[in-house]
């Protein structure tokens, strides 16, 4: 039974199409070796990076969660591991080269004697790298997928020389084991992945008040006649870098964007028609949002016996504006426009 399940997972994991393209599983991507595979078990890319606190070689302690908002390259090492040692200088260069892209490099010494690790870090680890000591291997164990390196008794050592990339939201985006067959101490593959990941990550926009994020313009027909049907367009313009939830948000707890008109004499409002949602990619999933320009059309009917005169169309829009990193308070904003009913038509 177990066998069948394992096979199903493997064949389901994309062995069919080996064509290069966005649908190619990460472990089949050319030039990227050693990516963790689903059948090894968690953690996998898309999972949250489990938080931990470890003593830093430079003194004090360090918590992974304190780097929320930054990219983190997490590398597990041991002073006696020849592959690992060949990499440390290059890890330092990577840290320097990517510092301006909000990337922090964290090196975890696994099961190292405290005094020896302290000496090793002083002698070998570049200052641009934050060195931590996991002397009992507890953190390494929590990151070791249960079915990777099944022949290893000490599960902490499964993680030696492996590299994870964690995004600013704290989600694992890349998890590579060492591949001695394609050993490249320069982290070229990790750099390529970081280039892509950081470039595709939405930029944090300048801070704004919730009201300033969305500008509202109401377009009405200049004049309608009794018995007419028409529509009012409420055009929302959402500032770059922000989004609001669509009228049907992905999660029940999200605040939907809603438009509502007050009752107006001789007008019957119909259900607003919202535009199609735009997917917004978070680190681990996609949510339904409005971005940029979103126009909501609100149809109405003019009563057959409507009296001539100007009508004030007053309404409100409720929304919650967010960036990739955080959301602002939800707001309800009122707006008004006028429309003539009956009378002269030229």
């Amino acid at each position, binding site marked *: 039974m177990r066998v069948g399940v394992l096979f199903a997972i493997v064949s389901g994991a994309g062995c069919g199409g080996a064509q290069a393209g966005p649908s190619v599983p990460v472990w089949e991507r050319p030039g990227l070796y050693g990516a963790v595979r689903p*059948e090894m078990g968690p953690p996998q890319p898309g999972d949250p990076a489990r938080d931990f606190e470890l003593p830093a070689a430079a003194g004090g302690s360090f918590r992974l969660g304190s780097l929320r908002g930054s990219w983190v390259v997490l590398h597990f090492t041991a002073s006696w591991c020849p592959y690992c040692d*060949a990499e440390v200088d290059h890890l330092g260069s990577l840290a320097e080269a990517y510092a301006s892209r909000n990337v922090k490099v964290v090196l975890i010494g696994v099961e190292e004697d405290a005094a020896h690790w302290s000496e090793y870090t002083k002698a070998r680890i570049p200052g641009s790298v934050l060195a931590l000591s996991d002397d009992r291997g507890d953190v390494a164990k929590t990151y070791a997928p249960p079915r990777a390196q099944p022949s290893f008794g000490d599960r902490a050592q499964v993680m030696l020389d492996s590299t994870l990339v964690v995004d600013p939201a704290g989600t694992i985006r890349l998890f590579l084991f060492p*591949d001695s*067959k394609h050993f490249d101490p320069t982290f070229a593959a990790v750099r390529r992945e970081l280039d892509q990941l950081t470039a595709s990550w939405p930029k944090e926009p300048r801070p704004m008040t919730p009201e300033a994020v969305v500008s509202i313009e109401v377009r009405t027909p200049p004049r309608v006649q009794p018995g007419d049907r028409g529509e009012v367009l409420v055009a929302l313009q959402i500032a770059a870098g922000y989004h609001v939830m669509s009228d049907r948000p992905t999660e029940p707890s999200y605040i939907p964007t809603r438009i509502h008109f007050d009752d107006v004499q001789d007008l019957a409002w119909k259900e607003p028609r919202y535009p199609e949602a735009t997917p917004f990619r978070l680190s681990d999933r996609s949510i339904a949002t409005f971005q940029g320009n979103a126009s909501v059309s609100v149809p109405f009917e003019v009563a057959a016996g409507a009296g001539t005169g100007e009508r004030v169309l007053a309404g409100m829009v409720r929304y919650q504006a967010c960036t990739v990193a955080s959301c602002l308070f939800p707001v309800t904003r009122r707006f008004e426009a006028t429309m003539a009913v009956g009378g002269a038509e030229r």
Partner: protein
Amino acid sequence: MRRLTCAGLAGALLAVGCGGSAPAAATPSSSSPTESTPAEPSIAVTPEMGSPHVGDLAPDFVLRDQDDHELKLSELRGSVVLLAFVTSWCPFSEAEQPNLTTLSADYSGKKVKVVAVDIKEKDDGYRKYVGRAKMPFPVLHDADGDVAAKFTPNLAQPAIKDRSTVLVTSNLVVDPEGKIVFFTMVDTLHFDARLVHARRAIDRELARLGTK
């Protein structure tokens, strides 16, 4: 045993993956030793990696074993020799070590000698290692790694400065004439902990001896 079988299966699947030809995983319900093994030997040492490689004479050496006996490789001519470069500090080597013991038991009484070379271990580390691991075959102490360095193909793993450590968890089969007929270095992704490919190479040599 059950645990071993399951672990082995996972390994076979990882290793075979999408390679296409996957004979090793064809009979997953059996407990054949091919289960945990990649279809091809891990990193086979080819002439492109420099010397020595398969086809060369194994460099000769003299080292002392755990009983303080001197052992000279060329004195084992006439037997098939499995030469395993081991160390207590490498997790791959540790995972392989019980399988070396099993292999030596399985081939006892045949013209096969198993010899381990412990690379770069201080005296007390070496003593602790041979005391703990209880390997029923010579475990030679290559304290400064000189012998390992002689066997390290000069173009393999160029990024690793300490050339003797390149050879950790490498396995060679040397034929009765002293020629290297099998030589792999550790493949961390497709790790053949159970030495299946080395066993195949030994079996080929024994078959050759039998038909001579």
